[in-house]
């Protein structure tokens, strides 16, 4: 395929960047300092006393933070890395996500340390198809120094990729409406949950059927459900994912207050909070222009 051909040619060009510098004599924008250490510890909830007080060291995992360009970027970035990213951007691989980080800490960094760094493009992968889209993994290796002495190394891998086009949302499957259950769906359209009742013996039944399971009587009328119920049983759907649904989600067998049971969704509550016996109440939820379904919300009783 010509598309693949183009990618192969691109892949060969990208490969040539291996070994070229990504940053030469980069300089950290700020010296290691207590304010940035404190902000980091606050954000991450790290209360380690080693990071505060007169003898404070920086959290070792901040290594990369001292080398970041922030909002305005770095002056010291070498041409090769920009060229590599430019080629990838031009090929449609405009998005980036980090996948791997390997750091070695040779000595702790302390407030006042002024960081410099050198980065080499270590490896560019062949074209890979991923869940996010198709792209290339780019691995760089950075040496971080203070006063010329190595203090740590930082190997970093990013996926530079063309975002997979988002498929148009598939609508939920339509209910199959036939002569036997049309009355039920007419009720739903009016936001009424109708239960069939045998006019011969009075037994309620759901789902709708042409005759009574109890006495065989063919005649029926309806009772409108109060909407109160409890979860009689449930499953949580994780896999396989159906296009119209957003797993994980709970599918429940709801026991209505009237005594019949129906399969529906429990909504408005995390799937892992659904429990047998959970009190629920009927709501009519509109899923698209043509589809409204009776589903159930958890209630506090």
């Amino acid at each position, binding site marked *: 395929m010509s598309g693949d051909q183009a990618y192969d040619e691109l892949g060969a060009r990208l490969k040539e960047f291996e070994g070229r510098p990504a940053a030469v004599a980069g300089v950290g*924008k700020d010296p290691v300092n207590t304010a*940035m250490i404190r*902000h*980091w510890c*606050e*954000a*991450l*909830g*790290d209360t*380690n*006393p*080693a990071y505060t007080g007169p003898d404070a060291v920086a*959290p*070792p*995992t*901040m290594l*990369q*933070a001292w080398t*970041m*360009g*922030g*909002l305005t970027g770095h002056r010291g970035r070498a041409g090769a890395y920009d060229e590599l990213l430019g080629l990838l951007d031009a090929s449609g691989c405009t*998005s*980036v*996500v*980090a*996948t*791997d*980080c*390997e*750091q*070695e*800490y040779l000595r*702790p960094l302390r407030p006042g340390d002024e960081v410099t760094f050198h980065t080499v493009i270590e490896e560019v992968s062949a074209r890979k198809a991923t869940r*996010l*889209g198709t792209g290339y993994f780019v691995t760089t290796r950075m040496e971080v120094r203070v006063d010329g002495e190595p203090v740590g190394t930082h190997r970093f891998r990013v996926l530079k990729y063309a*975002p*997979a086009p*988002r498929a148009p949302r598939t609508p939920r499957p339509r209910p199959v409406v036939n002569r036997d259950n049309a009355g039920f769906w007419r009720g739903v359209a009016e936001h009424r949950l109708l239960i069939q009742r045998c006019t011969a013996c009075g037994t309620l039944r759901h789902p709708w059927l042409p005759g009574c399971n109890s006495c065989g009587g063919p005649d029926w009328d309806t009772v409108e459900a109060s909407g109160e119920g409890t979860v009689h049983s449930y499953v949580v759907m994780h896999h396989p994912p159906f296009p119209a649904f957003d797993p*994980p989600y709970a599918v429940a067998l709801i026991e209505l207050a009237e005594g019949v049971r129906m399969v529906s969704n429990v909504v408005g509550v995390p799937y892992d909070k659904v429990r047998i016996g959970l009190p629920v109440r009927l709501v009519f939820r509109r899923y698209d222009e043509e589809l409204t379904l009776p589903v159930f919300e958890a209630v506090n009783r």
Partner: protein
Amino acid sequence: MRAGDRLPPLEIPVTRTLIVAGAIASRDYQDVHHDPELARQKGTPDIFMNILTTNGLVGRYVTDHFGPTAVLRKVSIRLGAPNHPGDTMVLTGSVEATDGGTAVVRVTGTNGLGTHVTGTVTVTLPAEEATP
């Protein structure tokens, strides 16, 4: 500290605030870590935690357990399922190997989507604490 020792799990509520605060504290202004609309345009349902925050949390998990005298030597992580707001990440770990005062700890962080992070942390303890 022996090979096979398990670290108690650490539950991290992945709030929008944690994701944004972690990104900014690590000087990472990539829009996917703070702007939901731009994140969606890049094919992800919402913002997600940046790798530096995950790296920091993995380091914190190990030093929380071994105490302030423990010194991190190496942290290597690989990311999988993203940490989106509203999720909870549970970090678990076990000591894979020891060598004198140095331990290699295997760490896994799982969230509602699956495995967010796997990694190994090499940590050194002062001599008197390494041998109980």
